[in-house]
């Protein structure tokens, strides 16, 4: 079976999600004034029609499934977890400390080869230099108040 002939599961999922979003917009916009509801309702209508079209096309096998991406799902998941953890840590540990940890952790997720001690040292220095220099640039030069964190009295 050719790729074009296969059912596009991703397309079906997108179409169902779009139908749900369009339905939600119509439901929610009941409370809005006519000025506030006309545009979202119009967009939701077009979205719903496109979603129906996609659903039919995907089920009939007329829609080509998206190409599968190679690579490690585990690393993708680990990166997502690290990013969420990094952002969640900021209110407690502050921007600087959580960024040092987050930078290090993302580096570990993206590391593929074994490192000799010298490379580890280089990575630690690069982490510290990148995070501290940008932290100083943003706080001192651009006057962006980065969170100090509850642990440090912020």
């Amino acid at each position: 079976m050719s790729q074009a002939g296969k059912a596009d599961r991703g397309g079906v999922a997108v179409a169902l999600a779009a139908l749900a979003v369009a339905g939600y917009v119509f439901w929610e916009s009941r409370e809005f004034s006519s000025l506030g509801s006309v545009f979202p309702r119009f967009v939701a209508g077009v979205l719903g029609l496109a979603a129906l079209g996609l659903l039919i096309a995907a089920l009939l096998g007329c829609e080509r499934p998206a190409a599968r991406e190679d690579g490690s799902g585990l690393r993708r998941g680990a990166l997502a977890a690290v990013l969420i953890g990094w952002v969640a840590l900021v209110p407690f540990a502050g921007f600087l400390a959580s960024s040092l940890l987050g930078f290090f952790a993302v580096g570990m997720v993206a590391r593929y080869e074994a490192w000799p001690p010298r490379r580890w040292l280089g990575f630690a220095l690069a982490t510290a230099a990148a995070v501290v220099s940008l932290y100083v640039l943003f706080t001192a030069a651009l006057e962006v108040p980065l969170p100090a964190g509850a642990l440090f009295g912020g």
Partner: protein
Amino acid sequence: MEILSHFVQALTPLNVLLAVGGIVAGTIVGALPGLTATMAVAVLTPLTFTLEPGSALIALGAIYTGAIYGGCYSAILVNTPGTPSAIATTFDGFPMAKRGDGDLALTLANLASVCGGLVGAVALLLLAPPLARVALAFGPVEYFWLAILGLTLVAALSEGSLLKGTIGCGFGLLIATVGTAIVGGDTRFVFGTQTLIGGVNVVVALIGLFCIPVLIDLVATPDAHIKVNAEVRGYRLDEALRIGWASKWNLMRSSVIGTVIGILPAAGGAIAALIAYAEARRASARPGEFGKGAPDGILASESANNATVGGGFIPTLTLGIPGTPADAIILGALLVHGVRTGPNLFQEQSAIVYTFMFGLILATVLMLPLGLVLGRYAYKSIIAIPKAVLAPGIAFLTILGTYAIHNSMEDVGLMLGLGGVGWLLNRAGVPPAPIVLGVVLGPIAEQGFVQAWLIGSATGDLLGMFFGRPISLLIIAAAALVLFYPALARRFAGRRTAE
């Protein structure tokens, strides 16, 4: 002869130094995702208060020009527009970088930015008063049709499935309606939170939708995220000049589009670049190559966004109406320096104004060598940095840049959430570009539509309001051409071949 004295005044060593410093500082700030041209101008404006008005304006103009240009670096090298103006640059810039032509893409972006910047600055110098009238001729309905013209790009950005592209664009338009409505003041789709009342910032959405999916896929394989050629090819300036010369009409058309859209208050570089991109694709003999690494796409986007700099100054100086948010800050700086903008500015304070205009041209010309050197440095850095440092570096910049927009960690959470959704949608065949198109054009489309609808209803001529105004009809015709011209051209070509 008097105008020559203003030209000489712009060339003092101090002014040249300020132009160089402004271009370099602006380019660096513009290249960092999250830091926009407006922020670059806002942060650096106080430094100019101690300067002479002409010199201060040259510094601000150079910062602004540099920041708009700098956005192309991250757009080309990491698929994340440094500023919203560089959205359309990602469409072909990153594919070029992926196939090993990142150096050429950067040089093309530099040439196009200089060309667009010069067209905008010369228009400001020679045609400011008549062009300012264009800004006054644009009403809500013209803005609405302009947004529709931009939305026709969805056909080009859908990567094979128009239905999926339309759905992506619909998601983007709905994201743009989140928060307090521009007309009417309803609070919409905020899920009971305070965070979303102000809406979803365009830059937050841009970083999330473009950068996070790249980051997720970057760590998944050991391969480099862009192809690197072993041979040393330098700036590839000759090659870029040849391509630029072959696409001279594209460059000129995009620069004029950028200048005219720059004149329109609140339109800005992102919309100019998107519309110039759509026009370049329509006029191209090979529209199918757009979105896959076509140099013409970069030339159109970068020339148009830099042309908005000069274009935006036209209503700012002649009418006191800022064309872009950065122009509004520069307008404030002008007032601090005692420069009163308005129709009489060119008579009453001509020395300052003409010195500034020549200074803007000088800064744009200086951007050619400075941009080439900075671009080369950025390219070498990106390809030399190992993935274990590049990935956390990009992650850190996205978090830092997103936080800096409103000093808000909620924005960072929103950016990550949009990034995750964007990655899932991309896996299912919905690319991020149509979503971003909707986010950028949604507010202008809604505001124009609702205001025109109100005026048309009040005057009892709704049809005439939408379809009876000359500029509207021109834009509608352009939108129809963008949508149907490729199909018609193919049909006619097929008929000729058959004959």
